[in-house]
C-alpha cells in the first residue's frame, strides 16, 4: 500500500516536472529575422551576418540549451544550442539573438547554417527531444537590406492576433492584420513594437477623461463581487441555521418552533447562560480568608504534625 502511494506520488511529480519543462520551452518564439544585414547590428567579432531572434514569452526564465535550430525540416537536429553556457538562460519576456553565419566555432550563438537572400528561408526551433516542433517560420524570398521580418507583437501567435482584432476595432487600421510584418525599425534583442505611449492610458484619456466610466464600471464590479458573496453566504447561513435546528430537535426532542427559539439566540445570551452555569456549579462557597495563629480545635492535623516536618531517612 505504502509502495503504491510512493509510486503514485513519484508519477505525479514526474507529470508536474515534465509539464513544467514542456510549458517553459514551448514559451519560446522565433520573433524577428534579418536576412540581409548590410548596415545593421554587428556581432561580437565586429561582423555583420543575418540573425534570428528568439523571444521568451513566459513570465519565467527559460533555458534554450539543448533545443535545436534548423533551416531544414528533414534535419531537425541541425544545430543544438550548447549546454553549459549561462547566456542560454533567457529571462522572462527577453530575447536571444543567433547569428546565421555558418561559423559555429565562434560561440554558442553562431549557427551552422546561413540564410539565403535569394529564396524563402525556413527556420524552425525544436525542443530538446529533437522531434517536438516549438515554432517555425518561412521568411519569404526577396527580403530588402536592413529591414527585418518579425512578429507584429513579441511572442504573439495567430490566435492572439485574432483576439486583438476581435477586441479592438482600431487594431487592424493601426497595425494591420498580418502576424508577420516587415520592420523598418529593426530591433535586435529588443521588443519589436516600441511603445512611445501607454495605449491603455491614452484610451482612458480620450474616452473617459472625466473618470465616470471607470467609476461606474469599477463600482459595478465591486458591488457585483460582494453581492454574489452575500448571496452565497446568505444561503450557507440559512443551511447552517437549518442544520442547527435539526440537531437541536434530534437531541432535545422539541418542535421546530422551539428549536428555532433555542438556536436563534445571540452569542451574548449564550455567554450569560455560560456564566450563570459556571457560577452555579464551579465556584466555591465563600470562604473565610482570615489568617490566624490560633490552635486548631482538632488534636491532630497534618499542619501541626511533627512527623510531616521531619525529613525521611532514605531507604536502602
Amino acid at each position: 500500500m505504502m509502495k503504491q502511494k510512493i509510486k503514485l506520488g513519484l508519477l505525479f511529480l514526474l507529470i508536474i516536472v515534465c509539464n513544467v519543462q514542456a510549458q517553459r520551452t514551448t514559451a519560446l518564439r522565433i520573433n524577428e529575422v534579418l536576412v540581409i544585414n548590410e548596415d545593421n547590428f554587428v556581432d561580437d567579432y565586429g561582423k555583420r551576418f543575418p540573425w534570428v531572434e528568439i523571444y521568451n514569452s513566459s513570465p519565467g526564465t527559460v533555458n534554450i540549451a539543448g533545443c535545436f535550430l534548423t533551416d531544414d525540416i528533414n534535419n531537425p537536429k541541425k544545430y543544438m544550442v550548447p549546454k553549459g553556457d549561462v547566456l542560454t538562460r533567457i529571462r522572462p519576456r527577453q530575447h536571444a539573438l543567433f547569428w546565421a553565419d555558418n561559423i559555429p566555432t565562434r560561440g554558442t550563438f553562431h549557427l551552422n547554417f546561413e540564410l539565403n537572400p535569394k529564396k524563402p528561408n525556413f527556420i524552425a526551433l525544436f525542443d530538446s527531444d529533437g522531434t517536438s516542433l516549438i515554432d517555425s517560420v518561412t521568411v519569404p524570398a526577396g527580403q530588402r537590406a536592413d529591414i527585418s521580418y518579425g512578429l507584429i507583437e513579441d511572442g504573439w501567435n495567430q490566435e492572439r492576433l485574432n483576439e486583438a482584432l476581435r477586441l479592438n476595432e482600431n487594431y487592424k487600421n493601426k497595425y494591420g492584420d498580418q502576424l508577420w510584418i516587415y520592420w523598418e525599425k529593426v530591433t535586435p534583442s529588443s521588443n519589436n513594437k516600441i511603445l512611445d505611449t501607454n495605449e491603455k492610458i491614452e484610451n482612458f484619456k480620450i474616452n473617459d477623461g472625466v473618470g465616470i466610466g471607470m467609476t461606474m464600471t469599477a463600482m459595478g464590479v465591486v458591488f457585483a463581487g460582494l453581492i454574489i458573496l452575500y448571496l452565497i453566504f446568505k444561503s450557507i447561513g440559512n443551511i447552517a441555521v437549518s442544520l442547527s435546528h435539526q440537531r437541536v430537535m434530534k437531541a432535545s426532542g422539541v418542535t421546530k418552533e422551539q428549536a428555532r427559539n433555542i438556536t436563534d439566540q445571540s452569542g451574548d445570551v449564550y455567554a450569560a447562560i455560560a456564566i450563570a452555569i459556571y457560577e452555579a456549579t464551579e465556584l466555591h462557597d465563600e470562604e473565610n480568608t482570615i489568617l490566624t495563629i490560633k490552635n486548631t480545635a482538632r488534636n491532630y492535623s497534618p499542619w501541626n504534625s511533627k512527623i510531616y516536618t521531619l525529613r525521611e531517612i532514605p531507604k536502602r
Partner: protein
Amino acid sequence: MDFISFLGDNLATFWTYTAFANITLGHVLMILVGLTFIYLAIAKEFEPMLLIPIGFGILIGNIPFKDAGLQLGIYEEGSVLNILYQGVTSGWYPPLIFLGIGAMTDFSALISNPKLMMIGAAAQFGIFGAYVLALAIGFEPNQAGAIGIIGGADGPTAIFLSSKLAPNLMGAIAISAYSYMALVPVIQPPIMRLLTSKKERVIRMKPPRVVSQTEKILFPIFGLLLTCFLVPSGLPLLGMLFFGNLLKESGVTRRLAETARGPLIDTITILLGVTVGASTQATQFLTWDSIKIFGLGALSFIIATTAGILFVKLFNLFLKKDNRINPLIGNSGVSAVPDSARISQVVGLEYDPTNYLLMHAMGPNVAGVIGSAVAAGILLGFLG
C-alpha cells in the same frame, strides 16, 4: 604648521560631509513632519504602530548627507535602506501584511449578517471620487488611480497599487494614506453627526447569530475563489488575506496563524513603516504633487465616509423595521481596521450608552478591506 593645516583641511572636508553643511529648508520641514507623527503617536495614541515607524523613518530619510557614493540613502542602489525598500517597490510587503491581517481578522460579524458587505462596497466610492477629482486637476489616469486608492483607507493596498501604477508618487500616497488612517477619529465623527438624525443614531441592531466553524472555514475559500475569479489582479492581496484567514479558522494550523498575525506582521510592519517614512526624502517628496495628493487624500476619506453612511440610510428604506441598520456603522465601510469600527462604537455610545455597535461595525469594516483590494485589482487591471 603643516600639521595644523593638514588637520584644518581634514576638518573642513569632514564638515562638508556632516548634515549641518547639507541641510536645506525642505529637510527641516520634513523632520518637523516626522516629529509631528511621533508626537501624535505617543501623546494622542493615533495609530502608534504605524506612525512611530513612519515618523522615525521620516527622520532617517531626511538626515541630509553629501552625495559621495557612500550608499547611504534609500534611493542609492545597493544601500541597506534601498535593499529594505525593495519590499515596498517590488510590492511584496503589502501581501505579507495582508496575510497577517487575514490571520487576525474574525469575519463572524460579516458571515452572520452578510448584507453588511454592501456597506463595504459603497464606501469604495471614496476611491473613485478621488480618482475623478485627481483627473480633474490634471493627473494622468494611472496616477489618478494610485491616488484614488487612498480612499480605500488601507495602507498596504495603497502602497501595492501605487508601486505598480505610479511609483514616483508612492511616498506621498503612502504617507497620505497612513496619515488619514491615523486621523480617522478626527475626520469621521463630524461627518457621521452631520449626516444622521438623533433617531437614527440610536437604532438598535439585532445581535449577530452564532456562526459555526464550518461557515468560518468556507468564507476564505469562497471569498478567494469568487473575488479572484472576478478580479485576478487582486490576487496578491486577496489571496494572502484569505489564506491567512484560513490558517486562523481551520483550527489545525494554529502555529502558522500565530506566526502570521504575530512576529511576521510585526516584522513587516516595522520594515514597511520605516522604509516608507525614509522614502520621503525632502528632495524627492516636497513637490506640488505631494501637496495635491494630501488634499485629494482628505477628500477621498470624506467621500468614502459620506458614501458609507448615505448608503446605509438608503438601504434602510428597503429593510423591515426590526432589521434596520444603524447608519453610524456606515463610516466603517472604509477599511482602516479596526479604527473606523471603533469610531462607530464611540459615537454610538454618546447617544445611547447601552447600544454597542462595535461587533456590527466590524462587518462592513472587514468588507471594506475586501472591497478596497477588489477595487485595487480593478484599477490595476484597467490602468496597469
